[in-house]
């Protein structure tokens, strides 16, 4: 019996040792990214090549990410927020300027994306674009009345599709749909316009099956709903899984967004963070990520490498934005603006 115990003890020690046998000569980097927003294999490749351990966490919305980063419970180095959130983080002094000399691969990113970034990051000092896209309607061709053409947000208010509509469960995205429907800017702070948008959302609520974020993908693939508000990046993936699905950018205009890498002011591993971002901008890695997450890459060099011509020139992945009117990018509205939207959203949700 005693021998057995010693044997077990020995084995446990062995496993424990095997577990930590991998040491990383160059320290670590703390990355905080959107859920399912990069190919896990690329992280392993990074660890392998640079001998840096990647501690990787995920979040579901910008709003969930922000308080965690602000509170600083975990000292993240690299985060990948969206446009308006980057602006908020710059204003709250949470970010540090990036030394682009240390990220030579950042030149692979197309100039137009840097120009788009100017809206929230004037002078392109703080962010390196990682993904971009639009927000639109994903619909199931078999569940839509053949008489209807899906080209407007108003179809989400059509009683025919009651209980078959999926809305985004995040404040800004939900209000974007409603504000655009009513012909207003999605960055408005005008009380009357917001009131109208709120009333529209309340009016729509009985028709909505559920307010979801990431689940919209699985529900649409599973024929659970006819219409869903979705990020363009999910469209290619969902179409691959369910050919009945189609993505459109509504004619009233929509949100063009960019998610970019930023380095936090309190980062303890700045050098590793730079290496990480540089690695993510390498064409082959950007391509791997694009193929895994199917979100449009701003990395022109990576786009050149896409073998499937249909995808490379896909209207969904790389739309020609000049053909759409009223495209906007979210801007940060200040704490008061945030609060205004939150209050209204709470009213919608509690109806």
């Amino acid at each position, binding site marked *: 019996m005693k021998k057995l115990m010693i044997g077990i003890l020995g084995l446990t020690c062995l496993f424990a040792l095997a577990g930590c046998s991998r040491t990383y000569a160059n320290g670590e980097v703390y990355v905080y990214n959107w859920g399912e927003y990069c190919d896990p294999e690329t992280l392993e490749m990074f660890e392998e090549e640079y001998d840096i351990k990647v501690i990787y966490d995920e979040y579901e919305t910008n709003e969930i990410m922000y308080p965690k980063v602000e509170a600083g419970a975990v000292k993240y180095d690299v985060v990948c927020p969206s446009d308006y959130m980057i602006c908020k983080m710059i204003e709250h002094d949470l970010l540090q300027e990036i030394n682009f000399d240390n990220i030579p691969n950042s030149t692979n990113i197309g100039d137009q994306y840097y120009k788009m970034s100017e809206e929230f990051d004037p002078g392109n000092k703080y962010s390196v674009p990682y993904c971009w896209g639009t927000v639109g309607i994903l619909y199931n061709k078999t569940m839509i009345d053949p008489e209807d053409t899906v080209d407007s947000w108003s179809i989400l208010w059509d009683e025919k599709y009651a209980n078959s509509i999926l809305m985004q469960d995040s404040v800004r995205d939900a209000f974007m749909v409603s504000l655009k429907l009513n012909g207003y800017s999605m960055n408005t702070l005008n009380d009357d316009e917001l009131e109208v948008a709120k009333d529209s959302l309340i009016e729509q609520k009985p028709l909505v099956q559920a307010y979801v974020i990431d689940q919209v993908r699985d529900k649409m693939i599973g024929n659970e709903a006819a219409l869903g508000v979705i990020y363009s990046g999910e469209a290619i993936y969902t179409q691959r899984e369910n050919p009945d699905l189609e993505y459109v950018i509504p004619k009233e205009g929509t949100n063009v967004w960019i998610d970019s890498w930023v380095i936090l002011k309190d980062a303890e591993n700045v050098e590793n963070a730079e290496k990480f971002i540089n690695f993510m901008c390498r064409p082959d890695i950007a391509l791997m990520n694009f193929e895994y997450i199917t979100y449009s890459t701003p990395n022109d060099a990576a786009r050149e490498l896409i073998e499937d011509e249909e995808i490379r020139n896909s209207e969904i992945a790389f739309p020609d934005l000049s053909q759409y009117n009223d495209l906007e990018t979210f801007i940060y509205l200040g704490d008061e603006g945030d609060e205004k939207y939150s209050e209204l959203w709470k009213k919608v949700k*509690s109806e």
Partner: protein
Amino acid sequence: MKNKYIKFLSAPYIIWALIFIIVPLLMVFYYGFTDKSGAFTISNITAIATHEHSKALWLALYLSLISTAICILLAYPLAMILSHIGENAGANKDKYMVFIFILPMWMNFLLRTIAWQTLLENDGVINSFLNLLHLPALRIINTPAAIVFGMVYNFLPFMVLPLVNALNKIDINVINAARDLGANSVQTFLRIILPLSLPGLISGITMVFIPSLTTFIVSDLLGGSKILLIGNVIEQEFTQYSNWNLGSGLSIVLMIFIIVSIVLSTIFDKDMEGTAI
């Protein structure tokens, strides 16, 4: 011989309680009674009076009372069968019954709730099956009914187990005596079994009512984020709107309801005998 050092054995628990219960509680009170700049305010507490918050609170109270009532109706007969008062008293299979009953609890609460989401969906497993049999589809996902269902499903064991314990403590001879003296089964139940099982019933009620009242995961997953309970409001203040002060203030209000139900349960259950699972 009484060992005077025996009380030090509780030190690990006291340290645990201090770090993980008392300190966080103080922090909740600190945030609840201050505003963003750190100045004293009670506006976070009075915020419960706004339409959205009070509605979420009443809805949560309403739904959790319904689920508690359903749990009692389901659990009491089951507990009578499982305890030695049941017809097949003493049979060994009762142990297995209890075992089977708590078996699902080995799986994570969250996973079980997500599983129900998939099962209940309009195009989900249950409806596909009903469809196959040409029966009308079950349309309860994303409604308050689904939330009540989730609460009952998840918290039912917390009602059954204290009840079984309390019923098992009843001396079978007391029941036999009642029968001997001419009480019929209804009288025996109302005068003997029910009063004697009251401690178990009360702690069962507390253990179902409190988690139901405070839950946000069940209402989120089975209610499609369309139905806002007070738990969701508090959770969102912390995770989405980064207003920790308001979230803490509303938590304090919720605590009042919890404390009331705990006080009620200790009044009825002085020996805390029903709480042991």
